[in-house]
């Protein structure tokens, strides 16, 4: 066989050459075509196909446009709701702070007065002290503490216990120092006016002094009890 090949190489017949030329052309065309496919343009796509391609691209474009609109709407909705919930959270936080001060579960600071009731004759009883607190409350005191230990809130009770007074279960020593946060001048006015707290204490045999303060800080906290029977009705 190799002999045969060599002979044919040396003296090729015309038909062999023609076949070789044809195969050469085929190989050339294949390589060219394959290379041509690599540069992926649309120059070898027929007109009809191009129209179809264009149509499908248009359709895809439209679909994506609709999708963009929908997603934008969703995003805007989410942004809005985020803003709303932020606002709600802010309000809730504010409300919680207000309620915490009201319920006495957090400390409070602000302008106010300090009323000191000295009672050498031990004539001041729980009801007199409660009257004093009520006076301050009427004048708009927002947070009240007695002797820095007993925070006065809605549930706080006043009790005569032997020589002492118990406020919300805590024993209060003399002299009684009532701190109240609120409008200082209004509070002191309410304490001082004729027939007011100071006069009342004096008739009972004690003395009361009131000082307006730029800053009163109440750190005493009330004992919070979880309601056992009451439930929110709303």
């Amino acid at each position, binding site marked *: 066989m190799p002999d045969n090949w060599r002979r044919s190489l040396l003296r090729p017949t015309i038909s062999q050459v023609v076949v070789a030329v044809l195969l050469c052309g*085929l*190989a050339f065309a294949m390589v060219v075509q394959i290379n*041509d496919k690599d540069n992926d343009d649309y120059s070898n796509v027929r007109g009809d196909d191009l129209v179809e391609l264009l149509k499908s691209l248009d359709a895809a474009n439209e679909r994506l446009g609709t999708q963009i609109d929908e997603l934008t709407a969703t995003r805007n909705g989410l942004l809005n709701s985020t803003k709303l919930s932020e606002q709600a959270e802010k309000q809730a936080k504010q409300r919680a702070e207000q309620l915490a001060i009201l319920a006495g579960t957090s400390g409070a600071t602000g302008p106010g007065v300090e009323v000191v009731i000295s009672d050498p004759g031990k004539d001041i009883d729980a009801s007199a002290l409660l009257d004093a607190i009520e006076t301050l409350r009427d004048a708009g005191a927002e947070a009240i503490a007695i002797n820095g230990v007993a925070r006065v809130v809605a549930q706080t009770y006043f009790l005569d216990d032997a020589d002492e007074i118990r406020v919300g279960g805590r024993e209060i020593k003399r002299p009684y120092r009532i701190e109240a946060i609120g409008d200082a001048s209004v509070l002191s006015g309410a304490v001082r006016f004729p027939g007011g707290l100071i006069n009342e204490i004096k008739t009972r045999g004690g003395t009361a002094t009131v000082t307006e303060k730029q800053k009163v800080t109440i750190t005493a906290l009330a004992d919070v009890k979880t309601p056992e029977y009451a439930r929110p009705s709303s």
Partner: protein
Amino acid sequence: MIPVIGLAIGIVAGLVLKPTVPTDLQPYLPIAIVAALDAVIGALRALGERRFNDRVFVVSFISNVVIAAFMVYLGDQLGVGSQLSTGVVVVLGIRIFANAAAIRRRIFHA
């Protein structure tokens, strides 16, 4: 042997020269290549069966290429270019498979 050398020269020429296909020829070249492949596979089968004839190969090669290109051209003119070229490719593909099957049976007896 010489045809194999021709094949190699064609591949090398294509790789080296890197010509681009003329726009006018672009629809016809792929079909023409498939048609030529059909002729070549047929020739291989004939070679295996020891009844290869140069003249038959040359004529079938050229006529295959020309007819395939002409059909695509005709299809383009009639507005069914893509369908007709698909049809031509299918028919040529079937022929190529049939010839390849014959070669396979001869070589592997399977």
